């Protein structure tokens, strides 16, 4: 196994025992990036020279016997919406040309204080306003999308171009790319991780969270980006075995309605395996699902138009066509539409907690089908329905953004097309620990930590 293939916990363990040097690890990751990223396009900016310097310092700290942070010597990437002092925050947009951040985002500071080594900034769908990340290919199959908007982050983690990355999630933008690239993605409870220093998309829906190769690593990253307020990783190690008594809701409406048959089968198999561990499966009707998509659009369009108020008037030609159309349309949306969407959001925020009085969490698909081709606009379902790719990817995720609750996606196997399959667990506010425990069980029941994307070198 090469160093870039290690999980964070494996690498940190070897570093602490002086069996792996941060220099060796960072060089291995940077070599991997050099080998495959010209094909995949995950990185918008590689900070290789600085990373090598930081790795040298990290190595010296180990040799000196200094206390080490949780991420000491671990290479990580940041979605290019997140500020790093002295670096541009491109948002993968020409609108940001010439921008240089004057300070680092809180999450950047905390990751670096924990000893993490920044390898670079990863591509996002422009301003996080989309689900495909056109600059980036899926490491499992280059002709397919990695999803978005944190597509560069998920792709980099999936091929070994970073041991972890940070993404943002406004309507599934961590979970969708993580699912499509076969890695773990955690959208925390809204407000748990600070958004300071991160370009917003829709301020009342935005969240920031980790993308990793294992559930254990997601716990570790969450611990760091919440300022170390809770020992998620240690608690996960201690408590993950005992699952009996947990009530896992299996929705009888909406979430399984329009779904690829192999994903459906994989989820049924996983449900049975989880039930065998002592988890109780409970059929449940999820309330107000018909309001999810219209309220998501009503809020996201209006709030994004507010964020880009100046830019859409001063340099509209600098936006990509799809994002420009959305921002222009949002700029003309009447206030009453936004308010109607906010009222619907308030109903969801009242209705979904009631559901969690009956179950501890939900098990649902993250995406209804595997990664679309990069030139694909719609999915053709067997019943004749055509569904836009964006709608298909958002519809199973946006509920967690509107209500603010946490959700985790975990890879659970491979589709016959050779693309990854995923399961999503959604819980009430601040149920991250429970979701990590269930996620770890799902990971274990489906073969443990998943391999790196093996086709990444094939263009």
């Amino acid at each position: 196994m090469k160093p870039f293939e290690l999980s964070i916990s494996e690498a940190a363990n070897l570093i602490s025992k002086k069996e792996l040097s941060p220099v060796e690890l960072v060089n291995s990751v940077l070599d991997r990036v050099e080998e495959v990223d010209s094909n995949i396009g995950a990185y918008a900016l590689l900070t290789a020279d600085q990373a090598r310097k930081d790795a040298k310092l990290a190595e010296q700290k180990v040799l000196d016997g200094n206390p080490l942070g949780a991420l000491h010597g671990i290479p990580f990437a940041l979605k290019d919406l997140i500020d790093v002092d002295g670096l541009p925050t491109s948002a993968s947009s020409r609108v940001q040309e010439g921008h240089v951040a004057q300070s680092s985002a809180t999450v950047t500071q905390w990751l670096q204080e924990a000893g993490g080594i920044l390898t670079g900034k990863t591509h996002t769908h422009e301003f996080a306003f989309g689900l495909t990340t056109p600059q980036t290919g899926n490491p499992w199959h280059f002709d397919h999308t990695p999803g978005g908007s944190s597509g560069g982050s998920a792709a980099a983690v999936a091929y070994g171009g970073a041991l972890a990355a940070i993404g943002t999630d406004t309507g599934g933008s961590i979970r969708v790319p993580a699912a499509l690239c076969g890695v773990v993605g955690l959208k925390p409870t809204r407000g748990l991780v600070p958004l300071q220093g991160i370009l917003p998309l829709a301020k009342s829906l935005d969240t920031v969270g980790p993308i990793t190769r294992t559930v254990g690593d997601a716990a570790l990253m969450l611990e760091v980006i919440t300022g170390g307020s809770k020992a998620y990783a240690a608690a996960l190690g201690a408590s993950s075995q005992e699952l009996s008594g947990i009530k896992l809701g299996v929705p009888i409406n909406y979430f399984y309605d329009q779904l690829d048959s192999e994903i459906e089968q994989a989820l049924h198999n996983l449900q049975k395996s989880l039930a065998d561990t002592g988890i109780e499966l409970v059929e449940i009707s999820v309330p107000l699902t018909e309001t999810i998509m219209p309220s998501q659009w009503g809020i996201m369009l209006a709030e994004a138009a507010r964020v880009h108020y100046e830019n859409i008037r001063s340099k509209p030609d600098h936006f990509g066509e799809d994002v420009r159309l959305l921002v222009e349309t949002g700029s003309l949306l009447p206030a009453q539409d936004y308010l109607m969407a906010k009222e619907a959001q308030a109903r969801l925020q009242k209705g979904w907690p009631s559901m969690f009085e009956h179950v501890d969490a939900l098990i649902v698909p993250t995406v209804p089908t595997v990664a679309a081709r990069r030139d694909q606009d719609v999915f053709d379902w067997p019943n004749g329905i055509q569904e836009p790719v964006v709608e298909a990817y958002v519809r199973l995720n946006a509920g967690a953004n509107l209500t603010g609750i946490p959700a985790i996606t975990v890879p659970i196997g491979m589709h016959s097309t050779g693309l990854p399959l995923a399961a999503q667990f959604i819980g009430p506010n601040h149920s991250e620990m429970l979701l990590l425990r269930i996620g770890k069980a799902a990971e274990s029941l489906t073969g443990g930590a998943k391999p790196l994307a093996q086709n990444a070198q094939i263009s």
Partner: protein
Amino acid sequence: MIPTYTPELITELARRQMLHLPEERLELIAATLTHVRTFIATLDATTQTSILNKEADLDETL
């Protein structure tokens, strides 16, 4: 009832918002705004249903 937006109506709305829209974009924006507003308006129907349900509950209580 959501109006079907026309390029002329979009021009007027954009002027009020101090948003410059080139003529060749007006049709597309009109169609998109019509579509989006019609979709968001489905929330109105769900609100009405919810109110009616509450009224029915109230009737039963009475």
